[in-house]
């Protein structure tokens, strides 16, 4: 009789580690596929009638503006262009493929395919943003209604969907803060923004870009954001507080309301970074904590796909006091029609070309509409359940810990530390993450600076099954075990991925780095095309 294959896949009642290999195509650089003369697509030619009427228009251009050498783009037939990119795609590990809980703070949840499908309707893709409002009532209605959702979810009074990502929303919020202080004649004086070290770096970076000085608070002895430090930091120079909560560590700041009060008392505004509000939907809101501004990442909490790093959408919301400062236009409804309101003299103006990433907003709208209030709360609850379940498993692994607020629950992510394992074995967190790649998993260590030594931030969201969480934890355990027994194996990982350990040195050396193929060929002393 045959062996029972299924049984062979288990040991001690647990599934054995997945035998994985990522697709490896060893693809050439696209320029190497070029064959002079080949075409990937043909474009419409000018009609003969037109040509007869207007002649060769491009040729009539002055020489000083006419391109001389055609751009040295590759010349490739369509099947080969397609094949090249199809292969590259297989060498990429999207959330559709892996148990993507390792990008803590990134909220890698399921992006429903129906929403993508809806967003690809020509009724969405083929809309020009400057069409007459009468011809875009559908999308205006959708965006308007989505704003109403966000108002309810946050308790804020008005939103702008214009920011194209979380950081853009943070910047917009800083800009609104400045406008507010400016309107009160305090813009010069209030030049400090306070944040915490476990708030997303964009809070600090955006505020800095906007011209503010940054004060960064560190956790208190219990591992919570430090209220005393805040009290010491605020002053008449305080423009505002920009704070992520739960913090990147997964810890909810229980004194958040007092934080807000302290800043308010000092005359500052408070902006709530709710990029990943996943664990608190329907649980707690910006309003109740007293915030003046907040933002959501639709590409996190609201499920829109991350697209290798965008397009995303960062909706920013404010209280009624601040709404006049929001970017233009806002979308309003007169009981009959939806329309743009540009007539907002106090607005900070435009922050992007049109109204934000509308098709991303459509996906987020659809996501809310298929869950409703009860469903959103279920999202939150299961996200925290998953997170605490995974934490429970991870913390049983030798060499790992969850620093700060030790022994406490986490909301929807945990920043772990492999400090002990690193000390024991010499294997770093980064190496553990890369070894995980050999099992079809991965993680991103965490934001710098590594306040938590050898960090690793996991955020399982609501989208994964218990079995997937078990698998993830089992691989962590497996790799940690390897670190103790065969550290070299881990240090030289990945072994089953598309490529092997890269040489980082050239990337930081101006003589050797090459951001384009042409730069690379030049630095190699080669003509632009190879062979």
């Amino acid at each position: 009789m045959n062996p029972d294959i299924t049984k062979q896949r288990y040991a001690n009642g647990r599934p054995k580690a997945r035998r994985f290999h990522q697709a490896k195509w060893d693809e050439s650089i696209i320029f190497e596929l070029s064959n002079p003369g080949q075409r990937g697509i043909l474009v419409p030619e000018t009609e003969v009638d037109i040509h007869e009427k207007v002649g060769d228009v491009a040729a009539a251009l002055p020489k000083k503006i006419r391109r001389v050498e055609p751009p040295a783009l590759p010349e490739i037939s369509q099947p080969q262009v397609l094949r090249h990119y199809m292969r590259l795609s297989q060498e990429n590990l999207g959330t559709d493929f892996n148990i993507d809980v390792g990008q803590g703070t990134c909220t890698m949840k399921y992006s429903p395919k129906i929403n993508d499908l809806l967003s690809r309707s020509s009724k969405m893709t083929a809309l020009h943003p400057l069409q007459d409002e009468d011809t875009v009532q559908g999308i205006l209605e959708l965006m308007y209604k989505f704003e109403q959702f966000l108002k309810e979810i946050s308790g804020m009074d008005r939103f702008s969907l214009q920011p194209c990502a979380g950081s853009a929303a943070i910047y917009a919020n800083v800009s609104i803060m400045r406008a507010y202080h400016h309107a009160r004649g305090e813009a010069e004086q209030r030049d400090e923004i306070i944040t915490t070290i476990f708030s997303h770096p964009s809070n600090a970076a955006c505020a800095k870009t906007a011209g503010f000085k940054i004060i960064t608070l560190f956790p208190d002895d219990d591992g919570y954001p430090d209220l005393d430090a805040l009290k010491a930091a605020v002053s008449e120079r305080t423009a505002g507080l920009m704070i992520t909560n739960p913090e990147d560590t997964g810890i909810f700041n229980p004194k958040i309301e007092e934080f807000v009060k302290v800043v308010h008392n000092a005359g500052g505004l408070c902006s709530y970074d709710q990029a990943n509000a996943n664990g608190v939907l329907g649980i707690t809101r910006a309003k109740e904590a007293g915030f003046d501004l907040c933002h959501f990442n639709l590409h996190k909490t609201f499920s829109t796909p991350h697209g290798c790093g965008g397009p995303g959408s960062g909706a920013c919301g404010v209280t009624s006091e601040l709404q006049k400062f929001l970017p233009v236009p806002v979308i309003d409804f007169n009981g009959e029609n939806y329309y743009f309101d540009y007539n907002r003299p106090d607005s900070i103006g435009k922050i992007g070309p049109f109204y934000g990433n509308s098709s991303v907003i459509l996906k987020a709208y659809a996501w809310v509409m298929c869950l409703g209030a009860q469903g959103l709360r279920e999202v939150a609850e299961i996200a925290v359940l998953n997170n605490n379940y995974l934490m429970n498993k991870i913390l049983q692994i030798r060499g790992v810990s969850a620093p700060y607020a030790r022994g406490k629950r986490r909301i929807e992510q945990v920043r772990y530390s492999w400090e002990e394992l690193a000390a024991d074995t010499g294997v770093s967190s980064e190496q553990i993450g890369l070894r995980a790649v050999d099992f079809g998993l991965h993680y991103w260590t965490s934001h710098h600076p590594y306040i938590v030594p050898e960090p690793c931030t996991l955020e399982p969201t609501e989208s994964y099954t218990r079995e997937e969480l078990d698998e993830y934890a089992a691989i962590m355990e497996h790799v940690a075990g390897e670190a103790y027994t065969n550290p070299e194996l881990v240090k030289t990982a990945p072994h089953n991925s598309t490529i092997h350990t890269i040489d980082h040195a050239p990337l930081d050396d101006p003589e050797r780095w090459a951001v384009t193929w042409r730069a690379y060929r030049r630095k190699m002393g080669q003509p632009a095309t190879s062979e």
Partner: protein
Amino acid sequence: MNKKPLIYPYIPNSVPEIKKQMLSAIGAESIEEFYADIPDNLRLKGKMDLPEPFLAEYELKTHVETMLSKNRTAGEYTSFLGAGCYQHHVPAVCDEINQRGEFLTAYAGEPYDDHGRFQALFEYASMMGELLNMDVVNIPTYDGFQAAATAIRMASRITGRGEVLISRQINPAKLSKIEDYCGHDLELKLIDYDPATGQIDLAALRNNISANTAAVYFENPSYLGVIEIQGDEISTIAHDCGAIGVVAVNPITLGVLKPPVEYGADIVCGDIQPLGIHMQFGGGHAGFIATRDEEKYVMEYPSRLFGITPTAVEGEYGFGDVAYERTSFAVREKGKEWVGTAAALWGITAGVYLALMGPEGMQEIGETMMSRAKYAMVELNEIQGIKAPLFTAHHFHEFVVNFNQTGKKVVDINRALLEYEIFGGTDLSTQFPELGQSALYCVTEVHTKTAIDHLVKALKEVITK
């Protein structure tokens, strides 16, 4: 009717039995425990007030499609709108690639598990580099507005100066963005244009430039569709004062037009939406910034830059972040501006587009657009009361049509054109009052002669009504 507990298809562990087992594995009584840190007074009492959901996918689909069906698209109508968002044919292969789950749902993996993304974006930058004739191109930022604003900040950091001269033929919305982004610490001055030719007024430029000038910024073609042919002179004026030349271009013109570096630009920026990305009501933008490969420039980019590098295996192409320590990811507020989610998928898409088009495709599409736009101008100009183009300059695919002599307002003309299922050009009467009743028209490779003739006929009727 369904008395069973509601199980959400997107939330696997919403099954009560599974929840229970997981809680017990953790040793928790209820999910409430995990929220222990949230003070009671911050807890939302009751349910959020949101519409009843459409739990069945079919119902959700019907709901959204019904809403969208109220839209009339630029495919259904004939649209002559441009002004920063362009209707072009999107090759099917572009969508095929950007819809691949591997690309669509990935985010921030390592150069190993996400090798494909690194290579595709490196290739995107490389092809843009060829189009622009420049060695460094960033991973796309949000849009051309952001690219312009950042290019200006880069110039300011590089020169250590605080003043920027900007050609007045800029999209007012973009100018507003630049003001929001740079206005708090840079002084922005507008440089006028010649009202006849539409070219930048070099005298005004000379009068305004100084040792405080960080950058001279202009667009080519300009917002009003004018091809600026004084690039060399402008660059010389800028460089003579130690300022940096920043030029924004529409990349789809570069099969025909000279890349700005060839007339002296130091930083080139723009928006890649025209390169294979649907308009999406303005949701298809992505910005590029390009420079020469000089450390002082490279180190001022806030964006990620992907570089090529060897791996442990001979002949294996590896990729990674170049000069990561510049970024806010690495050093928070000490980094250059910030980096975050931006528009990578559109970068990959534009790469596919350029790979499909190749040098000839880019040249031909430029020629087609120019010829058709020219034809439109000639035909429109023959209509009594219409002047097209308003400026004597060369134009690419956008141009100003002036209706002053018709005695009609653009807003009314455009409204009347809707009856013909035409979206007329963007009304400029408030943006550029000095142009009177003018509209910015755009013609691309999707506009057949028939479509243009339809416009001409419709306009004839509309203005004589």
